[in-house]
């Protein structure tokens, strides 16, 4: 009989990785509990339908909630076609040239640029140079720039999961590159591309810094009417409330956080649902 194998490293690794899972969950759970405890009682129909007010008990979040939703939809419309198109080009047409590798590296770098920088870019480019002023469109364009690199990378990842042999099979049948992309590559990659895009956009909804720079308002008593309207957004409203000294506004902030989390949860579950639905249809 050989000596029993030393079980210690295996067990240690197991516990370490287990705590790596459980620790963040505990912290997040604690935060969530705090927020729910503070804000849940504050959420009612008046709060959801109300406009900002100097009196905390009468303040509502309707304008910033609507603003955030408009931003998300607008950002998605702007960025998803561009991001997916760029990813398709880089994967299917770009080849391995020096130029395309240079672009690749820079896209990954852009994904890591702090969001405040994008805010300043948005301020200079959209608000000032293109004269969009502090409008919904300027905000959406800025957020679109912010998530574009992430969407390109997620989409490329999804396209790369389609094995090369299907492309060859397609070309072998006399299909052009575009026919191959439309009928074989895209249907197989689309669930992944969409999920990646939606997750990226749901991150953008929580962005505060770039919107402050671009000039989102905190005290607004009307809903955005068109692309050129001034707007507010949930994270900005929350930020504003948190910085007030009165206890009641802190409660408002917690309630706002719950609403924001709810919207994000909704968007993310839509991503999951969409992926499942597309895959079912693809089969």
């Amino acid at each position, binding site marked *: 009989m050989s000596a029993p194998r030393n079980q210690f490293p295996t067990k240690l690794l197991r516990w370490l990785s287990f705590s790596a899972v459980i620790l963040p969950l505990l912290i997040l759970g604690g935060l969530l509990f705090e927020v729910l405890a503070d804000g849940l009682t504050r959420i009612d129909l008046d709060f959801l339908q109300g406009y900002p007010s100097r009196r905390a008990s009468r303040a509502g979040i309707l304008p910033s909630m609507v603003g955030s939703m408009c931003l998300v939809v607008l950002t998605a419309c702007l960025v998803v076609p561009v991001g997916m198109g760029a990813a398709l080009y880089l994967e299917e047409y770009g080849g391995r040239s020096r130029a395309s590798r240079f672009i690749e590296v820079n896209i990954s770098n852009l994904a890591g640029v702090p969001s405040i920088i994008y805010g300043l870019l948005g301020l200079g480019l959209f608000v000032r140079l293109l004269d969009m002023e502090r409008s919904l469109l300027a905000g959406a364009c800025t957020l679109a720039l912010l998530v574009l690199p992430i969407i390109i990378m997620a989409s490329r990842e999804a396209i790369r999961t389609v094995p090369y042999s299907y492309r060859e099979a397609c070309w*072998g049948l006399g299909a052009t590159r575009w026919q191959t992309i439309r009928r*074989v590559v895209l249907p197989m990659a689309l669930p992944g591309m969409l999920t990646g895009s939606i997750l990226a956009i749901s991150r953008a909804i929580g962005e505060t810094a770039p919107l402050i720079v671009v000039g989102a308002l905190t005290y607004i008593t009307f809903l955005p009417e068109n692309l050129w309207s001034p707007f507010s957004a949930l994270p900005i409203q929350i930020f504003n409330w948190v910085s007030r000294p009165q206890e009641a506004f802190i409660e408002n902030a917690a309630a706002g956080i719950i609403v924001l989390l709810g919207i994000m949860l909704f968007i993310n579950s839509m991503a999951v649902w969409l992926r499942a639905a597309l895959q079912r249809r693809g089969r």
Partner: protein
Amino acid sequence: MSGVEAEDKNSVKIEVSDLRAGFGKTEVLHGINMKIPSRGVTAIIGPSGCGKSTFIRCINRMHETVPIATTSGAIYMDGENIYSSEVDPVLLRRRVGMVFQKPNPFPNMTIRENVLAGLRLTGSTKAKDLDQVVENALEQAALWDEVKDRLDSPGVGLSGGQQQRLCIARSLAVSPDVLLMDEPCSALDPIATAKVEDLIRTLKEEYCIVIVTHSMQQAARASDKTAFLLMGDLVEFDDTTRLFTGPSDSRTEDYITGKFG
């Protein structure tokens, strides 16, 4: 009548003339000359890395889909140089079908959709009896009886051998006149291999088939003519029986008797 048929059998479908091909600065094929007959099976054998696959991929211009691929020389199909600037490789590939090493039916399509993929992809489904196309192609690929009751189930649900025959049916559905097969049985078990070989023997009456194989037994069993490639050169090209019983080059003899490779 018989005179015409005999002539047809011996007529040349593909004439390869000083074909050189490679990747970047590496040349894989160093000037191949070969005349492939209109009917029957031509097998390409040789050790790994000799350029078999590159050669067959030049015949439907699939080789050039790799960004750094290079080609020179000419391949004449029915007398027309397929490498001339007037030939559109996309249209060429509709005349020259290809079956790959690993069965690759499209996973997002049913059996029926897979067979029709070529027509659907290229938008040429109009004015055709699609049910008839599906039945004919599957019939030709000896798969009809096995799948006729489940045409709408996914193509990837079939066994490996059935998938490969589905891929053959998919190629046949666009009615090519040449069928290229790049080691079509290397991922299959012996029984599935035997079925595909049977199929090749039937199809050769109607098509010009070029098959790459690393199994010499398969070349001997299923082909009429065999070409032996070594390090990018065509060493010997002859009737299969003659090449295997009395090769004229000593390197061919060494290879088929198993001294290397």
